[in-house]
């Protein structure tokens, strides 16, 4: 049951349009700082571009995908018209207005602070207000997901909440709480300074607030991908979900342990002691658990599909998989990238190893591989899967879809593997150019060139993606039938209350955040003499 198709399409189209722009900027950045580009006479242009790329890819694009997908899940999984459509449109328009408000100062060079803000650097106040509007718009979505589930529960007392909706609501709660860290940083610290009400700021405290958001936001980006793994992939390839309850446990674990771990981004920082860094490091190890469980459940679900198709043997079943099915391809690519990216992540979370690669190009390679690779390729798959149901038209270009997915995978590997390597060599992040004539830097030139070429492969793939969707809007009409989610091998008839509701887990999430962040934040907030003068960008 997809009633509000226009609403969902609006979210997806805006998401993919801004994605296209940010992807183009990204490819240009890769080119201009590589040996095949010429030195920028004005490095400031690079940082404008970088701020726009990060702000769009970090805040706007994944949020819109999660929202559009969330509305689609709410209508299809619950078989219920979306409640609060007007509010949903309000949220959408807040994001549009917020994005425009943020992008103007960026384009003018008045907000080149990168999407991670970096106070005491302070940009134009409208940049921050724009970001706040985007977040507020997304919070409306969070509230709507909760309201829609509540309405459904009233009509279906005690019934198991469909897995897709259970996970979707967990993702929305995760986002609501995750965004609070950056919101506190913006509202209490940065915006008063940017508006001229204050002229000093505690940079150390700001970094701790931001770390609250910076890590868990990754799991918010990941949610649509994991929902697709569990509830779309098995259906699309003709299998079943191995275990419904393990899926619920994974999503709950993300909700609880994604939050209190952000300080592993600040291992090298002087404003927190080693104790809390160790606690956050250990909790970060815990967050690998839901991913390990997911890898098992999804591989088992895929194996079921293969065996239903006649696959045999210990590994022989792999050949029986429907490899020409775009969903199968996307899943396989996503898992390969998740494997490499996850292994890199384990290195980042251990503070012994982190010291070797902290703030080097390794980190940039890492999150592009995980987010741009493993996560975004499933966003593509979600769009391809939903498109016929949203447009009422068939997606005709199956071969083109396969090529697009292949190119994205190849492009991401070619871009990020050399990127990791130069990080190990000690190449720092966020630099507009490098002096490749320096004998100490020259050995990195070849790797950086490969990365830049990979960037263009990604750009080509991104353009193909948008073209395929645009052509899908004009294809002949065809009824795609009702939208279905994957069934479990053993469909749940009843589900324990703990696996059917979120309240307990939300309470744990908040509780763990308070224990892991409360003391460091209070300690920094109450210590005097650590506020430093703001440095206004564009004022020099």
């Amino acid at each position, binding site marked *: 049951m997809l009633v509000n198709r226009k609403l969902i399409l609006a979210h997806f189209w805006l998401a993919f349009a801004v994605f296209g722009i940010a992807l183009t900027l990204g490819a240009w950045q890769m080119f201009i700082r590589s040996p095949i580009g010429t030195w920028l006479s004005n490095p400031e242009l690079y940082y404008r571009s970088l701020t726009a790329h990060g702000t769009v890819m970090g805040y706007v694009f994944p949020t819109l995908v999660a929202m559009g997908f969330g509305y689609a899940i709410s209508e299809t999984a619950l078989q219920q018209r979306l409640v609060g459509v007007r509010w949903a449109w309000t949220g959408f328009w807040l994001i549009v207005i917020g994005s425009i408000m943020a992008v103007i100062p960026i384009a003018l060079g008045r907000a080149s602070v990168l999407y991670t803000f970096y106070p005491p650097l302070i940009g134009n106040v409208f940049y921050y207000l724009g970001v706040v509007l985007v977040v507020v718009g997304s919070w409306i979505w969070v509230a709507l997901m909760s309201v829609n589930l509540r309405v459904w529960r009233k009509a279906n007392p005690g019934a198991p909440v469909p897995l897709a909706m259970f996970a979707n609501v967990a993702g929305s709660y995760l986002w609501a709480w995750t965004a609070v860290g950056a919101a506190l940083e913006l509202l209490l610290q940065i915006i008063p300074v940017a508006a001229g009400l204050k002229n000093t700021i505690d940079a150390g405290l700001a970094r701790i607030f931001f770390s609250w958001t910076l890590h868990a936001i990754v799991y918010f980006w990941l949610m649509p991908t994991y929902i697709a793994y569990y509830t779309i992939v098995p259906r699309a390839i003709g299998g079943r979900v191995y275990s419904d309850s393990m899926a619920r446990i994974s999503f709950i674990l993300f909700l609880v342990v994604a939050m209190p771990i952000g300080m592993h981004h600040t291992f090298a920082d002087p404003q927190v002691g080693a104790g809390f860094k160790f606690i956050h490091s250990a909790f970060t190890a815990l967050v690998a658990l839901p991913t390990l469980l997911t890898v098992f459940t999804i591989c088992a679900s895929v194996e079921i599909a293969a065996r239903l198709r006649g696959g045999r043997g210990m590994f022989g079943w792999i050949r029986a998989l429907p490899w020409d099915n775009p969903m199968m391809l996307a899943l396989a690519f996503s898992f390969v990238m998740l494997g490499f990216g996850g292994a890199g992540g384990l290195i980042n979370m251990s503070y012994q190893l982190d010291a070797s690669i902290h703030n080097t190009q390794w980190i940039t390679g890492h999150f592009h591989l995980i987010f741009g690779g493993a996560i975004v390729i499933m966003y593509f798959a979600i769009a391809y899967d939903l498109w016929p149901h949203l447009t009422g038209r068939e997606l005709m270009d199956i071969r083109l879809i396969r090529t697009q997915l292949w190119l994205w995978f190849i492009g991401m590997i070619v871009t990020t593997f050399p990127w990791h390597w130069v990080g190990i060599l000690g190449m720092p992040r966020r630099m507009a150019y*490098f002096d490749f004539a320096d004998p100490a830097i020259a050995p990195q030139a070849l790797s950086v060139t490969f990365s830049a070429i990979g960037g263009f492969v990604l750009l080509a793939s991104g353009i193909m993606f948008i073209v395929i969707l645009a052509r899908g809007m004009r294809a002949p009409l065809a009824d795609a039938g009702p939208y279905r989610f994957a069934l479990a091998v053993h469909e749940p008839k009843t589900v324990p209350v703990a696996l059917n509701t979120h309240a307990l887990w939300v309470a744990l999430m908040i509780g763990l955040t308070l224990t892991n962040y409360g003391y460091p934040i209070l300690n920094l907030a109450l210590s005097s003499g650590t506020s430093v003068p703001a*440095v206004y960008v564009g004022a020099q």
Partner: protein
Amino acid sequence: MSTSDTHGSASAEVAARVERRWATIAVVIIVVMALLAAFAGIHRATMPQPRVETTDPSRIHLSGEFVESNLGSVLEANGAVTVRAIGQQYSFTPACIVVPADTPITLRATSADVVHGILIQGTNINTMLVPGYISEQLMRFTKTGDYLMPCQEFCSFGHEGMWGKVKVIDKADFANRAKGGGRLSCVGQ
């Protein structure tokens, strides 16, 4: 696929058992990793900076350990070396740090304006410089030679030009240079 027949419930049990086994393996992997990190932290002293120290960046050039005349490398009475440095848009002071090989060295650094970072290429020496706070890193070089020391954190439009250098020299050579007292650096050499 029905759960009502006996075959279904038997297969459900097998499925649950396999799943539990995997979950146990996953938990063991994670516990071992956390224990290894704790062990390495305690026994190999590879820990992040343990203490938090603060300083007022608007006064560091006037008094305290980061006044200009105190920046650079100093040979302490116990044979160890202390290096003091600051980062500011867009350079380090001193821009070239000179240290002896095979000597325990303490790097103490802070920022005079925005957030910077110190990374010494080819080593695992890597720390943030956050204005208002003092960063401390223990280091020891085994090989003499020149190392690049870029700023690893975005510090505004000149970030790409913020590169310093570390010159590791022979221990005896360093002791010779340190004889006259004062603070050593290799700026201009």
